[in-house]
């Protein structure tokens, strides 16, 4: 991939947000290179152990540093970040090492995906075509966020670029698959959402009682495998990890 071509104009940029946040943004649209740049730059900032930085996290195209302005000035921190940005071409960074892919049984439509029909209509495909499109390739965990170990998965084909709904769906269950703006989110806890509820998995992405409470990290992949309502109910809904199978990525 031509990394220079993947770098959007005006980016990267460093912005103050609120009282204690500095955000390094690598883009404002979904972009594979900007996503990899965010993951690699966050790892670099964590390794650097900058004074006054309390916590580092990533979103789809950005890195957030939560810092204590009483310990370090935003100007000093900004200068450190600007210097780190010039160290290399972050947009050419490779994905993190040690990634995994989970094959996850998923039931689309019907009672388990009450808004699947509406989503198919917005994406201009039949339900069968939609299942084929969503399951054709593994989906990348582009970011973890909103709730514990909850992934933003993508990128979906361009016809899935419909907006969030104006009104909140009061609650979707744990394991729900919801879609909007060329992404799928797989919910780790029951939650309200403005995205369309298209299907269901039996996954518990987060369980503090497990040895590894958080199932996913950014860069991992999820391959959805379509199953019928009957198969979902008998072999996925109550199975450990919802019947999902884990493999290491080369």
């Amino acid at each position, binding site marked *: 991939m031509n990394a220079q071509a993947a770098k959007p104009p005006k980016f990267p940029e460093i912005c*103050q947000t609120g009282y204690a946040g500095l955000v390094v943004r690598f883009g404002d649209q979904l972009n594979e290179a900007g996503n990899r740049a965010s993951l690699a730059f966050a790892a670099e900032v964590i390794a650097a152990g900058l004074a006054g930085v309390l916590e580092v*996290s990533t979103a789809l195209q950005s890195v957030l540093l939560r810092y204590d302005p009483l310990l370090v000035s935003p100007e000093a921190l900004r200068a450190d970040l600007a210097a780190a940005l010039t160290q290399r071409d972050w947009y050419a960074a490779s994905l993190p090492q040690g990634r995994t892919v989970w094959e996850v049984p998923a039931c689309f439509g019907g009672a388990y995906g009450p808004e699947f029909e509406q989503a198919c209509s917005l994406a201009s495909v039949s339900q069968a075509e939609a299942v084929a499109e969503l399951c054709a390739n593994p989906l990348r965990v582009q970011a973890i966020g909103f709730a*514990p170990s909850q992934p933003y998965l993508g990128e979906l084909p361009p016809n899935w670029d419909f907006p969030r709904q104006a009104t*909140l769906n009061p609650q979707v269950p744990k394991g729900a698959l919801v879609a909007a703006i060329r992404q799928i989110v797989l919910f780790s806890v029951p939650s309200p959402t403005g995205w369309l509820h298209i299907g269901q998995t039996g996954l518990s992405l987060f369980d503090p009682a497990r040895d590894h409470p958080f199932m996913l990290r950014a860069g991992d992949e999820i391959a959805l495998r379509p199953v019928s309502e009957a198969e979902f109910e008998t072999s996925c809904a109550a199975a450990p990890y919802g019947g999902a199978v884990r493999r290491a990525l080369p």
Partner: protein
Amino acid sequence: MTATFLVHQAGPAVTVQDLGWHGYVAQGVSRGGAIDMLAMAEGAALLGQSPNFAALEMAGFGGVFSATRNCVIALTGAEMRADLDGRALAWNATHAVPAGAKLKIGPVMRGIYGYLHISGGFEPPLILQGRGTHLAAGLRAAIREGAELPFGASSATRAGLSLDVAERSAGGFIRILPTLQSDMFGADLLAAFQNTIFTRDPRSNRMGVRLAAPDAPNFAPEAARNILSDIVMEGDIQITGDGTPYVLMAESQTTGGYPRIAQVLPCDLPRLAQLSSGAEVMFQMISHGEAVEIERAAQAARAQLGAMCKPVLRDPREAGDLLAMQLISGVTAGEDEG
């Protein structure tokens, strides 16, 4: 033998809280922990212990409790009706609770979240190294009738202290700073937002305070429903698709796609958390430089809380109770007021 705090009856939203989890945002876990961090500092100052010692957070209503060992408690945050074996207890004060005595904490009188701190701190099993509760993330649940909460050993003898606390449930000006997305709203919406008087919508909880203003314009900017989800911080004021502002609190999501019009200054968050029904707030944008100075002063004030604690004026009619009270030791505060 472990000392236990017995829960004979509990309101619907009583949780064990510490200062919350830090360092898990990358994994999708926001802070959780006490929604009113100042109340935690006040309880710690009164009992002379760490602010991270866990306390009970009681939204709207407390419960009926007793302890299996003598202990000292501090009551902070929103003032609630409280009595010990029928004798009324003052708020923002410490009290000796003999083993077996019945402690009743009733409805809130103003504000939202009352806190019950105990000498030694509550010690439920650690979850991700924390003793707090994050209901949205499924980290521990609300306390139910019949619960038995272990609490730590302590030699605290600080019963009979009180702290003068400024009222923080009555509203007023709340200071805000720009976020990454403030510019998206444009000057007109930002001005309208600061010219609107808001109250607390009852559909508020530990995730967010929903703001109500009947005649307010729709604050949602054009084309905001297509923006990329980005990182959310505590205090961010999110504008949902229908234009409603939510101030995101201790259990907020860690990322989100609704634009944030501004962020509330950390030291003003307790005033939003405790905003009484019907109390009015307005928002006022300040610069980051001003915010740093305000936070520095707030930090200094928190550091002075311990020195501000002073002995409670005793009502002579309660003289009998003096025998049950362990009088103050190791306190530097001056004379009784008044």
